[in-house]
């Protein structure tokens, strides 16, 4: 089980800030974000336990996965 958190515009689109998932891989999880298509999910920044990971990353139990939409100026 992994903890999934969403930030930025992606969170407004998803309508949820966090959920838990049984997904085994990042690829699989990308298709499970509420109200966000798999294609859109591919354009979100992903951090697992605070660090960037490869596309093919396989989750470990208890991982925290952050999806973040691109940000920029302030």
């Amino acid at each position: 089980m992994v903890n999934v958190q969403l930030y930025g515009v992606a969170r407004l689109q998803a309508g949820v800030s966090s959920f838990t998932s049984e997904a085994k891989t990042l690829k699989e999880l990308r298709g499970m974000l509420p109200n966000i298509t798999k294609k859109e999910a591919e354009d979100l920044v992903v951090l697992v336990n605070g660090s960037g990971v490869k596309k093919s990353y396989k989750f470990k139990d208890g991982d925290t996965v952050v999806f973040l939409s691109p940000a920029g100026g302030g």
Partner: protein
Amino acid sequence: MATEYGGYMGKVLRINLTTREVDEYPFSDRERELFIGGKTMAAKILSDHFKGTEQPFSDENMMVITTGPMTGSGAPSSSRFNISTLSPLTGYVTSSNCGGNFGYYLKKAGLDALIVQGHCEKPTWLEINSGKVIFHEADDFWGMKTGATQEALDEKMKLPNGRVRKNGKICIGPAGENQVLYASVVSNERVAGRGGVGAVMGWMRLKAICASGNKEISVKEKEKMVAHTQKWFKYLRKHPLTGEQLPKLGTAGLVSSMQMKGLLSTKNYSEGHFDDFELISGERLAEQYNIVNKGCLTCPIRCSRTVEVEGKAVKGPELETLVLLGSGICNNNLEAVLRWNYELDELGMDTISCANTISYAMEANEKGLWDNGLHFSEIDDLSAVMEKIAHKEGIGAELALGSKRLSEKYGGTEFAIHAKGMELAAYEPRKAVGLGLGYAVSNRGGCHLNGGYAVILEGLGLSVNPTTYHGKADMTMLMQNLMEMISASGQCLFTSYAFFPAPLMSHPNSWYTKLVNAVLPYCGGAVRILNKFPEIAAIHLPVFHHTKGFEYVTGMKMPFGRYMRCGERGYNLERELNRRFGVDATKDALPKRLTDVVQDPKDPNSKVPLEKLKQVYYHARGWDDNGLPTKKLLQKLNIEAK
């Protein structure tokens, strides 16, 4: 002086408050070609007068309020005006930029700029109607907060039929009247916040200026501009930053990204992460407090938020306020930040400098250097403290001086977070060292935007290695010049974010974005060639609509290269001006906390290698080892040295 160019009203007015003399200040078309408008036009006017011996609170100082040729032209985000003066906070020339509608109405009144000198015997407000200046007593307004002042001014602007004459205004609050060194100037809900421009206005006993009129703002090639503007609006609306993040979350939307990247200034910049960041995030602001999005005139981005404070709809906080009065002082109470943001605007006080001065004081207290009663995360009395600052009462009289002066008195210079006396913005630069360089060299002191905003490449937007010094100096120079010119032309700096092609921002995981992130630090040489010889880019870039728009409005030829050269001229002109007041390499400094102490004990590079960065930067700029533009460079840029 009359002009052949579109976008300009062809008139600069000089007002002497002491003698009440008003005359036209000569500003020629040749000067318009070189110094454009906005902060650069203001720097030119100040440069013609300042020798370097002037004092901020004296009749020798002057406040130059400028618009740019794009102000009010209908181009996206083109409502900006600028106030430049000798800053009481830094002792150098500052420029403070503002949206709202004052710039537009100043032009409708027939003016490109106002030069205000001297001081009034009694509190005064100025009415500028179609180029005519009327002095009014402001005894009734003195002491009023900025909201009440603007309402009272609207009463005065009522026509016989009971309707308020359309106008734009600027005013100060109690902080400006009492010359708090970081007092702001407020215009509607927008604020010219930085550098203490409100304190100078307060010293002049000038409570407000109200501009109105119905002069036409000419556009040289109207039809072409209309078509171009449509395309430009569309482009901005489609871009992930100007069409998604800023409209949907405002600048506050950056809090979460900053947390993830170690950029969220926390506990007076001692850390880059805040455990409770979610509670002060832009997402929470949007989900629970935002009532409506607002924007300045003709802005498709509409980054401003409206929130409810004690039953009243008021402007929501920008990122800087949210962070510096949130994680900066270890506060997770968002409602308190919303209230302080409103109160600080009402008092007419810069939220950034005020917040950082308070966090310095909290740390000085914690370290036993100054027993002042302020503690991190204890926030119950902060509204009262802010009120005291604005009125310079009790501890407020000390806090009104800013963190630099306090650290010189009580100690702790290593954690007084300022550059050249002005407090830094919300980004912790040890995890974005290019931004650290920008803060240090910025002409007006610790400013992320005047510093070139390299953080947009270093973790927000793009993901270039944030702690390498490679390539950062040249990219900082490029961004500084670009933003200098956007500002001079009268447009909002946020339009500059669209300079980065949308696919790079919206596809952060694509091979091409990863490639750009990896190679950009090693492109310093290529960037330097563009910086040194911008004229080679004698074209209009498809992603950068500003240059064509500028040509259509003014009729001046402005390919990208020339645009950049104008920005370079502006940056160097302010530097030369500040040289007269003592700026040199030693003043391009950051507190030791940021240069000598790593943010992350596991990452030895997580501090700003400032001296190394400065050396490359000075070289890139063509400055000498002391960080000053050479005579040859000034000559090349048509800048007169004194």
